[in-house]
């Protein structure tokens, strides 16, 4: 069913340009006009809430604006990015530390979430009693506001009063309490663990949607062919699930690249876990250097844009209808 609709889609799309060129008549023009009428409000809102702040941030990054004086800022060109006298963002080791931290966090947390989310999705896709209840239950960590869950984990991970240290000491895994969120080696892992706990359900849900769209008859064909279930997973399920997985990963990767709240609540401005967003906030708010902070924000925007384009190109992710063929 899905494949046959894809066939008609591709036929339709291949014949569309000729058709529109051949019959550029009044009806077509009025259709285009009404399409624009429906699009304009959305485009206006997008320009207002996304386009304007973005452009303003890029503009501010070229100025020496401070938090108390954004209006009389002077244009200073690319000095916030790089200059010979005091460096700029690109020569700040703290910035590159935060870039590395962000990329590391993204790589590790998204990988773990993908593996766990896939396993969870496969489990939730099986028919068993209470499946609906479980599907709803796994969403609880995702439903809790990040600040709340981060604070909750902050207490649980507390070095003196935290329940985690208490449990590990009772069982005997550790003899002395560990300062999970303060130690430079454990802090990042603590953050990754909390993020995995929180967003695996989201990943699982996206992959589950993909699983439910897989053609069930293929599995019966594989059964008749006598293909081992493990092989079926690698040779049938995974390739067919690829578009759904790619989309889920892209969502999570974008979220992970601009991670802020979880890290800020758990570890504040600690350098061992500082991400690009935390760095930018520190510059903007704590140091009140709006120009410099905007430069960091613009760099963050560029890095995310480059990574996204690279990911889509390399992975050949089709975000349109063709992806679900």
């Amino acid at each position, binding site marked *: 069913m899905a494949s046959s609709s894809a066939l008609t889609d591709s036929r339709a799309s291949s014949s569309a340009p000729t058709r529109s060129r051949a019959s550029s008549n009044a009806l077509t023009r009025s259709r285009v006009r009404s399409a624009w009428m429906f699009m304009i409000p959305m485009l206006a809102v997008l320009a207002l809430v996304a386009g304007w702040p973005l452009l303003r941030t890029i503009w501010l990054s070229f100025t020496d604006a401070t938090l108390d004086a954004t209006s009389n800022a002077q244009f200073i060109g690319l000095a916030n990015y790089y200059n010979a006298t005091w460096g700029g963002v690109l020569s700040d080791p703290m910035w590159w530390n935060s870039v590395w931290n962000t990329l590391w966090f993204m790589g590790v947390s998204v990988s773990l979430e993908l593996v766990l989310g896939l396993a969870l999705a496969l489990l939730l896709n099986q028919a068993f009693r209470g499946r609906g209840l479980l599907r709803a239950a796994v969403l609880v960590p995702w439903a809790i506001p990040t600040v709340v869950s981060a604070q909750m984990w902050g207490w649980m991970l507390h070095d003196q009063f935290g329940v985690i240290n208490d449990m590990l000491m009772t069982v005997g895994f550790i003899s002395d309490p560990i300062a999970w969120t303060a130690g430079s080696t454990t802090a990042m892992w603590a953050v990754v663990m909390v993020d995995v706990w929180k967003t695996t359900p989201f990943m699982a849900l996206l992959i589950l949607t993909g699983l439910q769209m897989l053609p069930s008859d293929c599995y*019966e064909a594989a*059964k*008749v062919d006598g293909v*081992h279930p493990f092989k079926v997973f690698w040779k049938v399920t995974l390739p*067919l699930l690829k578009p759904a997985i790619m989309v889920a990963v892209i969502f999570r990767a974008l979220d992970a690249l601009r991670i802020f709240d979880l890290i800020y609540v758990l570890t504040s401005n600690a350098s061992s876990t500082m991400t690009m967003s935390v760095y930018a906030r520190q510059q903007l708010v704590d140091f009140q250097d709006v120009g410099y902070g905007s430069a960091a924000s613009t760099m963050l925007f560029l890095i995310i844009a480059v990574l996204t384009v690279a990911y889509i190109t390399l992975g050949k992710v089709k975000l349109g209808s063709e992806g679900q063929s």
Partner: protein
Amino acid sequence: MANLELKGIRKSFGTVEVVKGIDLTIEHGEFVVFVGPSGCGKSTLLRLIAGLEDITGGDMWIGGERVNDLPPAKRGISMVFQSYALYPHMTVYQNMAFGLKLAKTDPRTIDDAIQEAARMLQLEPLLERLPKQLSGGQRQRVAIGRAIVRNPKVFLLDEPLSNLDAALRVQTRLEIARLQKRMNTTSVYVTHDQVEAMTLADKVVVLHDGVLEQCGPPLELYHHPANKFVAGFIGSPQMNFLKITADRIDGRTLRCNMPGGNTLDLAVEQGVGARFAETLGIRPEHLRLADPETAPIKGEIAVVERFGESELAYVRTPDGQSVVVRLQGGAGARIGTKVGLVPLDEETHLFGPDEKAIPRPRGV
């Protein structure tokens, strides 16, 4: 050699029994068609043979081996699905090779089998294409090809033509018939289309509500239906059923009191309860026009459908029953004309109160 034997096969889903004790023997090389209306259990029965559903009761043998507890792959069957069930991400070649490759078959053997199947099904130019680049008919052929390369003992087809358009359906039907004769593999084919059943089958199995109504060669079912259901299901347009009463006038003759007051005398066997006949069945093609005064069936033409080579006249009897009669093309039947109809004696069927056919002397 692979014959298929079903003994008292039952299948329940929860408390609902959908297959209610089927006994059936299929000989090696036979082409058997399961036919029946939707929900009659024909697809379920096929899936039971395939092993995609567990048998609730009864026994099944394929080639002398009891297969009740064998998984599909060990039963020596292959199956063509209604929706083709091709792997969307694999080429035609990979689709056909997949099962064999994972069964660790020698690559040369796989290639030979695929080339052979591709030649038979004219798939050679399509081997490197993906399913989405194929038309419905081509996908269907790939699905058949994938089933052939496994060299099965029993070939199962689940409504393989139902997703094709009318012209392609006729063409593919012929191809399947040719292919089956050539390979001489025991085949079971499920359809709801009685035309497919009649044209393809060596043996037709009519199912209704999970019960085997009748099983036999197509023409046996056409000429000698075992009951009113089979009589109505086989043949198009449907057989006419007229409510009648009957009196036995001597040992071998039954007088039927027809709607409209005339009578029809039919030869019957003795001791078969012919006197209790309640329904007279006659196919549209087995009626001929006659004088309205004396003919056993009379009425007025209400609707005429013209097909060119033939015409169907819908005749309304005085008591409001409808009788369809097939006339020659150009017969010029007119709405409102009063007509009389005479049934062909040896093609007239009688059904008792239990809807079973009352046997009539053959070859009179």
